[in-house]
C-alpha cells in the first residue's frame, strides 16, 4: 500500500507520542509507526513512580504516564507491528508489517527511536558467557511484564537509574541484592534513587568498583569485583567475591539511529534547538539524540520536534542560521549542538565532574545559572531566549562558585 502524509513519526515511546500529538495539534496529517502492539515503549515496564511531575504535573508511574500520553492520540493514525526498513532521501519511508511492504510519502519525519542497552558482552570482562547475566532492562521486562524471576541472589553492575530501580524491584520480589557496583567515584543515577532504592533497603553501594571476572559452569555462580584506580584499572588485593546466580548490568544506553544513516550523529542524532537534524526534513527527539534523565524532558523534546516538523511540512519553518554550541570547561554533554537563534532554546547540560556549587555560564550571552551540588548524572536545564543572529558560536562552561564570605 502507498500512504501519503505530512509528518511521519517513527517510534511510539514518550518522545514519539508527544511528537505525534503536537504535530497533529498544528493541523497537519500524521502517521505514527510503532514496532510493538502498543505505544509506550519502555514506559510499559517502568512501573515505578516519579514520572510526569514536570510534564503532566502529576506523580505517575510509567504505565500511567503512557496512558495519559496515549489518550491524546485518539484521532492519529498509528500503525502497530511495523518495522521500518528504509528512510530514503526522496522522503519515502519503507516499512513492513503483517500485510507486506508499504511506502509512505511524507513531507517531514520525526525520529523517536529511543535507545538500546549496552550489553555486558561489550565490556572487557574475562569469563565464559553463561546464563544469569542480564541487562537491567531485560530483567525489568521479565519481572514486570512476564512474571518471570531471573534468579535468587544478585549483584548489580552500574548505578544508573535503571540499575538502582532494579535493586529495589529485585529486593521487593524476594531476590537478595548483595551489592551494587559503580566504576565511577559517585553514583550514576539521581540522588533520590540512591536514597529510595538502596539506602531504604540497606543495599551496599561500592563506588570505584567493577566486575573483574565471572565464574560458573552453565549458570553464574560467582561474581568477582575489585576496586579501581583513577584509570579504572583494578587495584590488586581489593577483590571481593559474591556468590550469586544473577548479574544485572546497567552500564549505559546507546542512542538508536537506525535505519537513518545519512544524517550527522555522535552517537545520537545531532539536532538543533528546533530538533532539526543535518537533513532539513528530518527531526529527532528523545533518547535517540542524547540520553535524558527524565521522561518529562523526553516528552517536551518530542513535542518540540512535532511542532517544528509540522511547521516544516507546511512550509512555515525552514533551516535558518545554525549557531554552534561548544562544550567549554568542565562540561561533559551539552544538547542540542546547534541553535537557530531566531527561536527559543532549551539546553540540557551535564557537568564533567562533581561541584559543590557550580556556576554555569553561556558565553557570550549574558546567562549564568547557579546549581548546588552539580553532579554529572543530573542534567541541568537552561533556557535561552532568541539572541543576536550575528553571534557565530556560543560556549557553555562550568566553574566552582567560591563563596566570597568563605
Amino acid at each position, binding site marked *: 500500500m502507498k500512504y501519503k502524509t505530512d509528518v511521519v513519526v517513527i517510534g511510539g515511546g514518550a518522545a514519539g507520542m508527544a511528537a505525534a500529538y503536537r504535530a497533529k495539534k498544528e493541523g497537519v496529517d500524521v502517521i505514527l509507526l510503532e514496532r510493538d502492539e502498543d505505544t509506550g515503549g519502555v514506559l510499559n515496564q517502568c512501573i515505578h513512580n516519579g514520572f510526569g511531575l514536570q510534564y503532566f504535573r502529576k506523580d505517575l508511574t510509567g504505565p500511567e504516564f503512557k496512558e495519559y500520553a496515549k489518550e491524546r492520540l485518539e484521532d492519529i493514525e498509528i500503525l502497530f507491528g511495523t518495522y521500518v526498513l528504509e528512510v530514503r532521501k526522496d522522503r519515502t519511508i519503507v516499512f513492513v508489517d503483517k500485510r507486506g511492504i508499504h511506502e509512505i510519502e511524507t513531507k517531514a519525519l520525526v525520529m523517536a527511536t529511543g535507545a538500546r542497552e549496552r550489553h555486558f558482552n561489550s565490556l572487557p570482562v574475562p569469563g565464559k558467557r553463561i546464563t544469569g547475566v542480564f541487562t537491567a532492562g531485560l530483567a525489568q521486562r521479565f519481572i514486570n511484564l512476564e512474571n518471570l524471576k531471573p534468579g535468587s541472589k544478585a549483584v548489580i553492575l552500574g548505578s544508573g537509574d535503571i540499575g538502582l530501580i532494579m535493586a529495589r524491584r529485585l529486593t521487593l520480589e524476594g531476590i537478595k541484592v548483595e551489592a551494587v557496583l559503580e566504576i565511577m567515584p559517585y553514583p550514576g543515577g539521581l540522588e533520590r534513587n540512591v*536514597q529510595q532504592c538502596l539506602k*531504604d533497603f540497606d543495599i551496599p553501594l561500592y563506588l570505584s568498583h567493577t566486575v573483574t571476572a565471572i565464574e560458573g559452569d552453565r549458570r553464574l555462580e560467582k561474581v568477582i569485583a575489585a576496586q579501581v584506580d583513577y584509570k579504572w584499572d583494578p587495584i590488586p588485593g581489593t577483590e571481593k567475591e559474591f556468590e550469586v546466580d544473577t548479574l544485572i548490568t546497567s552500564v549505559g544506553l546507546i542512542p538508536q539511529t537506525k535505519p537513518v544513516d545519512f544524517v550527522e550523529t555522535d552517537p545520537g542524532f545531532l539536532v538543533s534547538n528546533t530538533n532539526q537534524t543535518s537533513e532539513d526534513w528530518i527531526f529527532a527527539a528523545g533518547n535517540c539524540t542524547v540520553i535524558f*534523565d527524565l521522561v518529562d524532558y523526553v516528552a517536551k523534546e518530542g513535542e518540540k520536534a512535532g511542532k517544528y516538523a509540522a511547521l516544516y511540512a507546511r512550509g512555515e519553518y525552514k533551516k535558518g542560521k545554525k549557531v554552534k554550541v561548544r562544550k567549554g570547561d568542565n562540561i561533559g554533554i551539552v544538547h542540542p549542538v546547534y541553535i537557530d537563534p531566531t527561536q527559543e532554546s532549551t539546553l540540557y547540560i551535564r557537568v564533567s565532574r562533581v561541584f559543590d556549587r557550580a556556576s554555569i555560564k553561556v558565553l557570550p550571552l549574558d546567562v549564568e545559572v547557579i546549581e548546588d551540588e552539580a553532579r554529572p548524572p543530573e542534567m541541568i536545564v537552561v533556557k535561552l531566549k532568541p539572541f543576536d543572529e550575528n553571534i557565530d558560536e556560543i560556549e557553555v562552561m562550568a566553574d566552582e562558585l567560591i563563596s566570597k564570605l568563605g
Partner: protein
Amino acid sequence: MSSSQNLVKELTCVRCPLGCKVKIEYTEELEVLNVSGNKCPRGREYAIQEISDPHRILVTSVKVKKGKYLLASVKTTDAIPLRLFDEAMKIIEKLEIEAPVKRGDIIIKNFLETGTDLIVTRSVERL
C-alpha cells in the same frame, strides 16, 4: 541553650525528581529545630517524617487472570510507612485479580489501615 545532643541529618528529598538536599536539625526527643535546603514545603514535611517514620509509595504488580498481560502494575495512592513494605508485599503476592482492569481501579481500600488505597496503574484488557 542548645545542647550538644542535637542531631543533624542530611537527606535527599524523594518527593519529586529535583531531589533537594535537605538538612534537618532535631533533638533526641524528635523535636525539630531547623530544616533547610528544601525548595518547597513538601521537603520540610518529608524531612520531619524521615527522622521518625519514613514513608514511601509502594509500587509493584499483581497477577491478572484472563488478561492480555500476566501482570497489572499497582501502587499505593500515597506514601505508606516503609516498615510496612514487607507485610504489604506478602499480601500483594497472594492477590489475583481478573481482567479487565482499568488504570485507577481500587484493589484494596485503606490498605493496611494506612488510609491509602492500592490501585491499578496499568489497564489490562480481557483476553
